[in-house]
């Protein structure tokens, strides 16, 4: 047996080869041990960069995500090639996330978006990952800033914009607009009326502009959401007018006139709200259907119940496994009417009675047991 000096070229090659063999055998623990040994024993060796790459791979395969993330960060530091650097940064950030280290993931993702504005789609996607992490961590201000960045970066992207960057920008824009909308309900119309009305109208105008702009993205979900909000802006304005503070000192007749004037002013806004909610339903024909459209239907059901408050009949739980019967009692006057309309149906009422009496006894009981539109389960024994 020949002992090799730790620094000998033969030993370094042997260790590197051993690591490669362990990797091929998928023995991640041994492979990592040999590779870290190599790193410590031969710090100046030309294969050190390869060792880092191998270690990153070995740790990831061995599910040592935190260690793998460190190695990928090291690859980024050691690399000269931009493609390798960017790939290593994204891998490192994802592995930090997998390792339950969101703060470190955030730092690495931030480094990526600053260093690599191109390609645009990856940059915007990474911004979205940062936004998601910030939201999870409750960093509201930073989250909002990141959404603003997504909107801005996409808007400046010109020809690099893709369906995905547009989608993410539209979604981010929707969150930002929703934040602005949240304050709209809070503005109540109080005396002096002119002042509060002006404030509400200005905000209404801004919100209409903001949500209308979102529709330009032509992203189905965002269009439906924006349309819902546009309708609600009108509805809220109408509601605010009706609930506004009444001027003091009016006698009964003056107050009545005032109420009528308010109604006249509020009504067109409610009409507009209905019209905009209805336009949301038109998206269905274009293949768009989502919870925002359902919400528009719910609101329309409140505004125009005769037309929209329609609930489906849901299937009951089937409690008996033997069969199923459905029957309903026809109104006698209806039956008479139909019989009279049909010339071939001129028969004596007694004939029907005869038919009923001819039924088997158990069937008669079942038939007479329910009310109109009864679902009868079972029967066959």
């Amino acid at each position: 047996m020949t002992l090799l000096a730790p620094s000998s070229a033969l030993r370094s090659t042997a260790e590197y080869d051993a690591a490669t063999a362990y990797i091929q055998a998928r023995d991640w623990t041994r492979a990592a041990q040999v590779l870290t040994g190599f790193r410590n024993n031969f710090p100046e060796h030309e294969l050190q960069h390869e060792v880092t790459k191998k270690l990153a791979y070995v740790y990831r395969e061995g599910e040592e995500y935190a260690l793998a993330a460190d190695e990928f960060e090291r690859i980024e530091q050691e690399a000269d090639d931009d493609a390798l650097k960017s790939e290593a940064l994204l891998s490192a950030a994802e592995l930090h996330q997998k390792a339950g280290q969101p703060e470190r993931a955030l730092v690495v993702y931030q480094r990526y978006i600053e260093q690599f504005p191109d390609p645009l789609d990856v940059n915007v996607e990474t911004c979205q990952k940062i936004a998601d992490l910030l939201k999870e961590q409750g960093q509201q201000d930073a989250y909002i800033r990141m959404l603003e960045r997504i909107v801005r970066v996409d808007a400046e992207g010109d020809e690099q914009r893709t369906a995905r960057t547009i989608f993410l920008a539209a979604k981010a824009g929707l969150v930002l607009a929703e934040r602005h909308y949240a304050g709209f309900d809070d503005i109540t119309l109080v005396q002096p009326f002119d002042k509060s009305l002006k404030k509400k109208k200005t905000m209404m105008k801004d919100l209409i502009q903001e949500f209308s702009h979102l529709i330009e993205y032509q992203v189905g979900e965002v269009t439906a959401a924006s349309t819902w909000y546009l309708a609600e802006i009108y509805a809220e304005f109408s509601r605010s007018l009706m609930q506004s503070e009444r001027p003091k000192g009016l006698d009964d007749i003056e107050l009545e006139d005032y109420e009528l004037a308010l109604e006249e002013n509020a009504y067109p806004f409610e009409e507009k709200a209905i019209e905009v909610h209805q336009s949301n339903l038109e998206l269905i024909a274009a293949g768009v259907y989502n919870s925002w459209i359902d919400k528009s239907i719910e609101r329309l059901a409140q505004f125009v119940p005769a037309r929209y408050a329609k609930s489906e009949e849901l299937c009951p739980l089937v409690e008996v496994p033997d069969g199923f019967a459905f029957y309903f009692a026809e109104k006698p006057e209806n039956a008479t009417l139909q019989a009279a309309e049909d010339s071939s149906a001129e028969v004596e009422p007694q004939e029907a009675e005869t038919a009923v009496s001819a039924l088997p006894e158990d069937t008669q009981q079942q038939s007479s047991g329910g009310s109109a539109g009864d679902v009868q389960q079972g029967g066959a024994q």
Partner: protein
Amino acid sequence: MTGLTNFRLLGLALCLVILSGCAVQLPLQSGKGEPADVRTTAQSAPAPSEPALCGFAVAEPHKLNLLERNEFLRAVELLKAGQAESALPLLERLSQSENVVTAVYVDLAKAYLLTEQKGKAEEALQSALRLIPGHPLASQEYGVMLRRAGRFAEARGLYEDTLTYYPDYLPIRKNLGILCDIYLNDQDCALEQFTYYSQALPDDEQVRLWVSELQLR
């Protein structure tokens, strides 16, 4: 076989009672293929004071044995108690039985939906419809599921198929009307369904209002 015979009798009895003119077409479903097409023409009318019965019966092609029946009833109790997770294995086992009935599939679909397994719920309902084509309850459950998923054309096709088998199954009439009116913007279809429903159940003021509103629109 006795159960099936009884059910045939029930169906026939209902058909006879219906002769007053409520049903356009009264199928007596045997569960083993195409429903028997018992076309009725009004030949008799009930006494003015007695309400006539309209409707139909659907017999199952198989019958659960006693053990299976008890297991089914236990699953139903679990579902009623809000324990869909516990009901699922019982219903899944029953669905593998050679005696499987549509009730098993429909309740299995409900259990899957309650446990947010939409794909499996859909498979269960499709199995029910293979067992008895156009089964009213399976179609009702499936139609609403398709509508909620935005698969409006499929929901409409399903409802229309069901109505060729069971034209008097009013819940499907109502659901198809709503689908046409609100989601498909097909007012003629909606009016046809609500009118049929309203003529069958004239006391339903809500649907009567829907008919009027559609006529005025």
